[in-house]
């Protein structure tokens, strides 16, 4: 049986998934250890966290949901905003457009590589909290949902930001930080949402990071602000909207 016949008998979704995985694997090889990705995705959140914690009379264990959320947020949103403009600049993104790869699969591939990066990275602060600082798991379901849905949503956010009209990674990184830094303060990373002023609590609804933090707080046995299903639904909604917007914006390049 020829390759073409065999491919024709396979479901289209499976074929697309294989191509998306090829894109992810390539991104993992190329971008995971790029200095810019490690600096903005790993060192930056740790530095911000310590800048907030040092010299304050706060029990370290209470800050771990925030640290994990911050690491997840920064690491996952860094990959696509680096890789997409890098490939646009070197014209290697065109390689994906030359091939029979739908824009949906191209975006999925980019999102998957960011998801895996963030997933692995955010396990480190979680393990450090559990092993060295006495963090405990209060709700496994909330913790798993926070890590899985949170990473997926943040990976999609990074993808959407990478579609801005800019042709070099530094320009996209500037836009990325312009979005990330304000979100950090309205999402309950450092201060629980319930203790934010009224305007902060209203703004928190508009940040997907808020729901990740809230799920992580539940997961690590701290009081939460929203019910778990609200966080899950909001993260799914943000993910779907940002994914569709990314595909549409990428398609617009083609016109």
């Amino acid at each position, binding site marked *: 049986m020829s*390759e073409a016949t065999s*491919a024709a008998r396979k479901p289209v979704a499976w*074929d697309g998934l*294989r*191509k998306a995985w*090829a*894109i992810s694997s*390539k991104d993992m*090889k*190329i971008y995971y250890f790029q200095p810019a990705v490690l600096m903005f995705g790993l060192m930056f959140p740790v530095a911000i966290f310590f800048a907030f914690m040092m010299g304050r009379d706060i029990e370290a264990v209470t800050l771990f949901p925030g640290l994990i959320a911050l690491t997840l947020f920064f690491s996952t949103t860094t990959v696509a905003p680096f890789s997409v403009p890098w490939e646009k600049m*070197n*014209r*290697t993104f*065109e*390689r*994906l*457009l*030359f*091939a*029979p*790869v*739908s824009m949906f699969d191209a975006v999925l591939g980019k999102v998957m590589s960011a998801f895996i990066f963030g997933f692995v990275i955010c396990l480190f602060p979680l393990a450090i909290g559990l092993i060295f600082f006495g963090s405990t798991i209060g709700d496994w379901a909330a913790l798993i949902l926070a890590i899985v849905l949170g990473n997926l949503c943040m990976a999609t956010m990074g993808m959407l930001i990478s579609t801005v009209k800019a042709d070099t990674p530094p320009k996209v990184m500037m836009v990325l930080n312009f979005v990330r830094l304000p979100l950090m303060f309205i999402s309950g990373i450092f201060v629980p949402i319930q203790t934010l002023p009224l305007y902060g609590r209203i703004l928190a609804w508009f940040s997907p990071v808020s729901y990740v933090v809230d799920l992580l707080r539940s997961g690590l046995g701290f009081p939460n602000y929203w019910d778990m299903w609200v966080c899950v639904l909001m993260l799914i909604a943000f993910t779907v909207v940002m994914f569709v917007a990314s595909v549409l914006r990428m398609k617009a390049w*083609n*016109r």
Partner: protein
Amino acid sequence: MMNNSIEVKELTKYFGELLAVDHVSFDVEAGEIFGFLGPNGAGKTTTMRMLTNLTRPSEGSASILGMDTVRDSLAIKAVVGIVPEASNVFFELTTMANLTFTGALYGLRRKKRAARADELIALFGLDEYRDKKSVELSLGFRRRLTIAMSLMHGPRVVFLDEPTSGLDVESSRLIRGIIQDLHKDGVTVFITTHNMEEANQLCHRIAVINASRLIAIDTPERLKQAATKSQSVEVSFDRMLESGEEAGLSGLPCVIEMRSLGDKYHLVTSDPPCVLAAIPSFMSERGLKPVSINTFGPSLEDVFVQLTATDKEAS
């Protein structure tokens, strides 16, 4: 049986107010090597990008192997190979990894990807660089790899944008040889270039685009016949001519223009025998002896210059 691999009808592209391609129509036969010539900015690359659906046409349509370039974009990409002007390989990946990644994008199975990659590495003389990152490759080898990547899936139509631009002689010859082999295998090849000699050597037919419009389309030899005024006689004497003698040479019957090229004199004419008949008496009157005398038909470059100049005057 379908005779045309590519059919283009009234293809037009606007970038805002700028008209980049103006109602271009042509067909490319199956298995043909088709050249698309034009000066920089004429619309060559934009036309190629529309044919490969990297850019949407503003008006008109095109089909490849009977499939519409916009509607059946993914199906077309599965059977088409594209070589852009810039060698866009992944610098961070090895030669092998670039090829296998490309194979994966076309849905080739792991074993087949590896086998095909090895085959192309041998064909393009990349064995030494198989496991080296592409950033270490020279311009010529990067170009070879770019073309090899476009052939991973065994395409039936290949688009090449300036395939040998800026390359050394060895790489250029190798690439031209591979293009001719593709033709022997029945692959349709569409080349955009401004290298006249390359188009002359490789292409069965040539289309000339200037200022967004298609101004000529024919075989290289027929196009040359249209430029009979651009024939020439090149003569070299045993000594350089003095200025008065040069004036005498340029005043010979049937000479349209004379150019001094090193130790030779290039006499442009529409009637080479007429010039050849006049040269012996010119030499005997001045005591000159010939070192060499050659006649040349019009080059494709002459045709191109003539066509684009005529088009410019007309517009």
